[in-house]
Each structure stands twice: as C-alpha cells, then as structure tokens.
C-alpha cells in the first residue's frame, strides 16, 4: 500500500510526474505509450472519510494535513449534502501550465505536468486557471498539485477513485484518449 521507493525519490527531487514513465516518449517504442491518471469514478459513493486526503498529504509530504492534499473532498451544505470530489483531471491542454508565468509548471512531451519549485514565484495564476479547483497554493504559496500517483485510491473504502490509463501524448493513439 505504501508508495514505492522510486516514487518517494521522485517526490523528494521535486520531479513531479509519473516515475514509471520515460521522460521522453520513445518514437520507436512498439507498444502505445500510456500514462496513468486519477479518475473520480463514483463521486456519489463518497462517505466523507477524507482517507484520500490524508493518504495524499502523508505520501507526498510526510505530514498529516488537509491543506497539503492535492485531492479535496468538499461538502456542499454540510455533511447533509452531497460530497464533491475535487481532483486533477490531467488535462491534455493543461490551463495551469499555460497560465504559469515562469515555467514552473511545465507540460512534458508525454502530457504530464511537472513542477519546478525553484522557478515558482507563488503568483497563483495556476490556481485561477483551473475551474475545477484542483490546484491550489499551500501555506508556502506553492501549488499543491496532483501527481497521479494513486496513493489516494488505495485508501478509498468505496471505490470512488480509480486509476485509468490513457495514451501518452506524442503517441499516435493520443487523440483517441478518453476524457472524463
């Protein structure tokens, strides 16, 4: 259940992306290149335990925190209302990266967005650009961004969350990728 070493190392170096993916898509690879993304499959099944949020902050930052979680469970009219699951959609044309004024959020050729902490000025344009609300500035004024690692999925007791594979960008089948 714990995230593997490679992933932890990846978090520590700040290279936010998917460790199992190659940085550059190999044009000559035989299989279609895939990347994994988090999918909110059944938001209506959420019971509001916040297990995903704790998994996220625990795994990504080694803290216990709601603020440090990239996935967010919001209430709408208290717990009598329905829960809203706010999660990064791994956009094909990510507005957060487009809005970034310094190149701190960079879209890699395979479609993943990486975050270069040293370039970030904390301007908050990325936060404004995402209508979903999936990227937000933390206490240090740096974006808290989903890296689609799947840690949250393992701690959802009701299958609200799942991981899905989509074609990596740059791949010939990329255009056929599903949208959620």
């Amino acid at each position: 259940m714990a995230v593997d070493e490679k992933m932890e190392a990846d978090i520590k170096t700040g290279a936010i992306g998917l460790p199992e993916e190659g940085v550059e898509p190999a044009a000559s690879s035989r299989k279609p290149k895939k990347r994994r993304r988090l999918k909110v499959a059944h938001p209506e099944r959420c019971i509001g335990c916040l297990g995903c949020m704790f998994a996220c902050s625990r795994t990504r930052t080694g803290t216990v925190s709601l603020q440090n979680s990239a996935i967010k469970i919001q209430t709408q009219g208290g717990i009598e209302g329905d829960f809203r699951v706010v999660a990064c959609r791994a956009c094909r044309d990510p507005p957060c990266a487009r809005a970034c004024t310094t190149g701190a959020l960079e879209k890699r050729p395979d479609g993943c967005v990486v975050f270069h902490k040293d370039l970030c000025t904390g301007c908050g344009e990325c936060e404004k650009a995402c209508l979903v609300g999936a990227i937000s500035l933390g206490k240090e004024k740096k974006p808290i961004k989903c890296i689609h690692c799947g840690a949250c999925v393992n701690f959802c007791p009701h299958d609200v969350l799942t991981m899905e594979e989509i074609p990596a960008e740059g791949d010939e089948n990329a255009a056929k990728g599903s949208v959620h």
Partner: protein
Amino acid sequence: MLRKVLYIDLSKGESWIAERQDLFEDWMGGTGVGIKLLQEECPAGTDPLSPQSPIILSIGPLNGLFPVATKTVATFKSPLTGELGESYAGGRLSLALRFAGHEAVVIRGQAERPVYISINDNDVKIKDATSIWGIDAPTTGVILRDREPGVGRRSIIRIGPAGENLVRYAGVVVDTYRHFGRLGLGTVFGSKKLKALVISGTEHVDLPDPRKYREVYNRLYATTVKTDVMEKYHDIGTSVNISVLNWLKGLPTKNFQLSSFSEGEKISGEMFADNLLIRRLSCAGCPIGCVHIAALKSAFSTHHEFEVRKVSYDYEPIYSLGSNLGIDSAEGILQLIDVCERMGLDVMSAGVVLSWATEALEKGLITSADTLNVPLKWDDVEGYAKALENIVKAPNEFYSALARGVDYAAARYGGSEFAMALGKNEVSGYHTGPASIVGQLVGVRHSHLDNAGYSIDQKAAKKPMDPETMVDEIIKEDNSRGVFNSLVGCLFARGVYTEDNIIDALGAVGITKSKDDLRDLGRRIFEEKYKFKVQEGFDLAHAHIPRRFYETVSTLGKVAPETVEEMLRIYRRKRGWS
C-alpha cells in the same frame, strides 16, 4: 506536536492559550486530560448551571493521525446527575481541533447575551448569537456555515431549544447527525448562553518518522477495512442489534415491562436498511461509514407533495424511541428522532422519560390534566412528538419535571421502581442481565459504554460466568476504556486498537509507552474520576436500582437482586472501597 489548552472566558470575553506539556505527558489526552482539567476548573459543590461550571473539550495524541481515532470528549459537571459529566462525539470535531492546534478547550464563565465562539487556528472570537437564539439545531448549522470560514475542514457544534431552555438532558449536535448526547452538555451550553462553536484550522502535523508512521497507519487501516473486526458497523450498522437482542430477550420494550418486542421485525435494522436507508456517512478519518441516514418521506397534501427529511438512526434511538415506547413503525421512530435532532435532546434520556410517563399515566400517578391532554400511550407517535416539544417548552409543572430527568420526575410523582435510570442517568437499551445493570451503575458516566456490561452478559449467555468473573471483566473494561478514551478513539474500533497496536501508534508519533504504563494510566484515570464523583455526592453503596430490572426476564433469565448485590460487593472489594 504542540500540546496546548485554549482557555475561553465568556464572562470576561477573553481567551488565551497555555502550553501544558506536563498535563498531556501525565494524562495522555482526551478523557485523562479532561478529568484533570475538570478537577482544576470545577470546585466542589459547583452548581452545574452557574458561570463557575466549566466545559472542557479534549482530544488525544492519535486524533486525526490514525484511522478511527475520531472522537472528542466533553467533560463537565452534569446537570442531570449532579456529578461527572462525560460525553463523546465524532463528526469532524477532533480533526478540526487537531488542525486548529488545540488539544483541549476550556470554556469558563457565562455570556451576558447569546453568543457563539468562532475558533480559527489561534484566532478566537466571541460573537453575538442573539439572532439565532431559539433556532433549531440543524438550521443553526446551516446559518453558521454561511458566516464562518473553513469549508470542508471545520466543525460546527450547536445546541437547539432544549439546551437553551435548560432541559437537563439537552445534547450538543456535532456537524449534524453526531452528538454529545448524554448527561446534559447542551444544558451547560445553554446556561452559558453559548449557542455554538465553530472550529477550523490550517495547521498540519509533522511526524518524527514518516516512514514508520505510514507503516503503522497502513497496518491499522488494513485491519479496520479488511478484517471482520468492524464488520457489524459496515453493513446494517448498530441497529443490527434490534433483531439480535429481541431474539435474546434483551431488548427493553414498553419501559422494560418486556424484554422482547412482538413487533420487533418492523423496526429491525434490516427493515431500516432495506426500506429507508439512503446513504452512509463517516466521521473524518474513519473508512467505515457507520452513520446511517434514512429518508423520511411524508405527504403534506393529497397532491403528491412531500416533505423529505434525512434522519440518522442507530440502535439506541430505535430502542429508546421505538421498542421502549411500543412503536412498531420505522417511520414513526424516525419522526421522533427528528424532533430530538431539531430540539437538541438526548434521544436516550428522552425516550426513557416518555416511557416512564406513559406507565405513570396508565397507573394513575399522573393525569391527563398533567399531560395537558397529550395522549401518552404506547405506539402513539403524534402524542410522543407533542410531549417532546412540551418537555422543551415546559408549559406546566409536569413537563418541567420531565425536563429534569426520570429520576427527578419519579421522586416528584412516584413510580421510582420503574424509573429506568442508574446513577440518575436514563439507561441504555439492554436488559441482558446483571453485568449490564452493575456495569451501568458503577460506570464513571453510568453509560453502557463505560464497560460494556451488556456484552459480558451476552458472553455469559454462551458460556456461564460467575459473578466474580463478570466483575473482573467490568473492571478490565472500565480501566482499558479510560486509556482508549484518552486517545480518543471510537469505541467501535476497540477491536483494532489492541494494547500492542496502541503502543505502536503512539510510538509512531513519538510517544513511548509500555503496557504497564497504559494499565497504570487506565487505573489512575478511573480513580480520578471516582474522586470527582464522590466529591459531588455519588455513593455507590446507596445508589438506586429500579425494581423493574428484577421483575422482567432478561437474556440471562430473571436477575436476582442478590446477584447484583453480590457483584457490587465484589466490585467494591476489588476496587479497595470496602
């Protein structure tokens, strides 16, 4: 982890924060810290409804950090029993306190006019609540949600009209559907003119060893969700016990005149789950989702116009407002639970008060002039709903007496032999045998959850147990629950938190304890609580046991008074009180 106490004085309109490392080191947190703060704050003989009477909320070192460590304990002087008040609630409160950075909150004094307290990290504001005084508990939550920050990470706890009007068993509604139900915390809120607390925070917790923490967390999480330790709470929920206890002759019915209900199938947990359950919710940090919500749909015209109310239910309200009142419809029970939710009444005390009143009317101890012609009779949902509202409004002496609890009402009108309270607290839904009676009587807060005597009886039903063994089990639970309630975990997860697991979890957050340390802590907490109880007049040797317990057959057959007396003798001896 900072271990701070937030003090708020409503008389002076001030608040301050004190670091109390020693207190938390010696007493862990939760109920251990709660009882010590109560001793500090509440001089002997304090009127529970006076400004000198404190409210203490506390959490422990595992809250927010480990699965199912989701509770907050409130410690106070009970206006119902006049001695130790202790009540637990889930929801999001413990998490909100954790991230606001306060492991305990002490509220002193009395406001001049209605107020609510807004706590956002270290920012504490006492705000005017005149415009929401008198508003029901759910609506109060709706209003404050729009006024206060912290969506998704805050907790809103509030009272309804019952607390404002000082009904002695008024509760505090926590985040909707969860409650500090028992022993009148809501009454103490009302006496302080304190309508609500809104708590949110943005702190986080750094861990001494994140890798070890993750390892222990993952293990406890897996135990919680993947084994059958908590199976009962996954599916039907606590209400699964209606059928079980009905079959075992342990389900109090019509004020304990019977221990099984002929109509039990109509109000069983299975019946609720199959026909009325619409969703399940969870306290923050618990993957179980034991909070069962039913939709109560009722037509208010013949033109297909409906009211829909979402009502949470559990075993205890189905007993107290159901079988105990002879009510044979699940919808009827939901209707009464909903009245208690809105008024902010403890469902258990309210049900027992009504069942006593019903029998008292039948027996002619009271008249319809006393009830103001409200028909208090078994299975009369509308009558009971009206009576609950009257208890809150207290339009005459009779309803005022009911508002002071069943012990008081029986002292005034008679019928103490069927006034079902132990230690002046209206009893929970078990007539399983002597361990349930003795357990609730000796328990620090006179709750079935102090030591789970009902569970000991059920074990004895499978394999006979002598009185001494029963007492040993009660003492073991009394003490070990003191430790677990210092953490503060949900008692439903007590099977997950073995001594070894508690030690590992504490170790992962930098607190080193041995088994001996924990056992010593449990014993010390129990002793401190009893000191307070005795100081405030509780006398186990002379505590009243309603005769009804001995008249109605239980799971273990008819309970002989001699058995209970013998168990109490053994208990006092083993506690060193002879």
